[in-house]
């Protein structure tokens, strides 16, 4: 028993145990191969970013991890169990926040949806809703409907609903893709600090190379037609990250160059 407890803390043991694992995953949709023979291990607490040219299957890979798609061959597992359907402890942040929120519920109501389904007693919900909305920076907007909120606020709200699931893993599909640059940078930092507190594993799909490097512990680049892994980079930048100093770090610039060349080569 002690040896197991001990092994947990050693780095070599962590290498063996992964939270989300793809092993030789292939997916055909409508007669076309979208993803081909992808193997990928994501460790608990790791922040993995997936990048790639359009049509490389990044979003499809995320949906496989979510259990929304089932692989044609190979398998996807979570904590060692095969992923046959979506799990409540794996939350998904969709890019199109406007479609993923319930327009007929207020901000508080949207967060409540997750609390209702996890079966939290009614009396405990208001406090938890307040706490979650405060966490994502929407403490004064509980009574607003999504239609009354800006895009950035709606995306924060979707993140709050996902956090309400108390997920072990958070899957984010280009969550900031539709937002302007200023809002996007603010949200990047907020996501980093939120995750620092929750320790959830993250798979983050983006087409923005700098965003991937800035956020991730690791960046995986996919090659298109069909989607395959083309590059897998460890990001050794110090945390906490900072919009100015991190982005000026020579290592950041080197990684950006490497990924840029990768994308350019993959599109050729």
């Amino acid at each position, binding site marked *: 028993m002690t040896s197991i407890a001990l092994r947990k803390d050693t780095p070599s043991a962590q290498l063996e145990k992964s939270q989300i694992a793809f092993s030789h995953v292939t997916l055909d949709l409508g007669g076309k191969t979208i993803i081909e023979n992808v193997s990928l291990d994501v460790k608990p607490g790791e922040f993995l970013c997936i990048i790639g040219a359009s049509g490389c299957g990044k979003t499809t890979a995320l949906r496989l991890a979510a259990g929304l798609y089932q692989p044609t061959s190979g398998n996807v597992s979570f904590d060692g169990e095969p992923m046959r359907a979506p799990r409540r402890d794996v939350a*998904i942040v969709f890019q199109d926040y406007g479609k993923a929120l319930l327009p007929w519920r207020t901000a508080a109501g949207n967060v409540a949806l997750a609390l209702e389904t996890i079966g939290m007693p009614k009396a405990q919900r208001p406090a938890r809703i307040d706490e979650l909305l405060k966490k994502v920076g929407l403490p004064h907007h509980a009574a607003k409907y*999504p*239609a009354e909120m800006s895009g950035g606020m709606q995306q924060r709200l979707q993140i709050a609903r996902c956090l309400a699931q108390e997920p072990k893993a958070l899957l984010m599909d280009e969550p900031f893709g539709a937002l302007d640059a200023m809002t996007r940078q603010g949200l990047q930092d907020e996501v980093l600090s939120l995750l620092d507190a929750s320790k959830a594993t993250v798979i983050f799909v983006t087409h923005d190379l700098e965003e991937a490097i800035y956020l991730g512990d690791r960046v995986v680049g996919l090659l298109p037609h069909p989607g395959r892994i083309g590059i897998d980079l460890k990001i050794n930048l110090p945390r906490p990250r900072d919009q100015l100093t991190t982005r000026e770090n020579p290592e950041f610039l080197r990684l950006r160059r490497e990924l840029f060349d990768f994308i350019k080569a993959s599109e050729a």
Partner: protein
Amino acid sequence: MNWTLTLWRLASFAVAAGLIALWQLIANLKLASPVFLPGPDRAWAALMRGFSNGTLLEKTIGTLEHMFYGWLVASVVGIALGAMIGSSRAMRSYVAPSLEFLRPLPVSAIIPVAIALFGLTQGMALFVIAFGAIWPMLLATVHGFGAVEPRLYEVARSLHMSRLAVIFKIALPSASPDIISGMRLSLTVSLILAVVCEILAGLDGLGHWVLLSARAFRSPDLFAGVILLGAIGYVTALAMSLVEQRLLRWRTSGH
């Protein structure tokens, strides 16, 4: 801004008053036979008389009851059936085409069948009104369930929501704009069919009242009845749009 609107509104009332005055003039000059065109003064007097002795109030309540019960049955059955059909893809492809085929059927044609089944009774009226009023709601519910944003179903799947929770928390609210407009349309249909059933079956209500008044050439009473039927149509539509505004607040509220 508000001022000009109020002024226009007042002017619009003045135009309506002018037209009523014109009606009075035509009646006074006997340009149309007073047998079927009473002046507004006589129609108004008949309306007041009918209310003071309670007859018209009773008839109004009769019509409202016929209309409302039929509409209520149609709403409950229509929405439940629509949810059942709409929430399953298989049901949609097996049942929806049959419904679409029946949609353009002039619903009043079911009246003789209902008479053959139930006789000239309240039950017949209830059946006819409910049958006629069910279509807009049924089709709106099926359509609304079919048009739910697929992303919301994915949210529901990732939250592991039960089938019942998906229906009540996702599909029904999402389809509610369609359902409510169906309910509004059904309300109009209910009123028309209530009048027709009253005329045919002699059931106590304004439809029967206007017919009797016409047969006895009591045109002021007849017009009083028609005015009341118009008022019922107006008030119920108004009530429905108030309910709609309240329930669909999330939809209209923008920046």
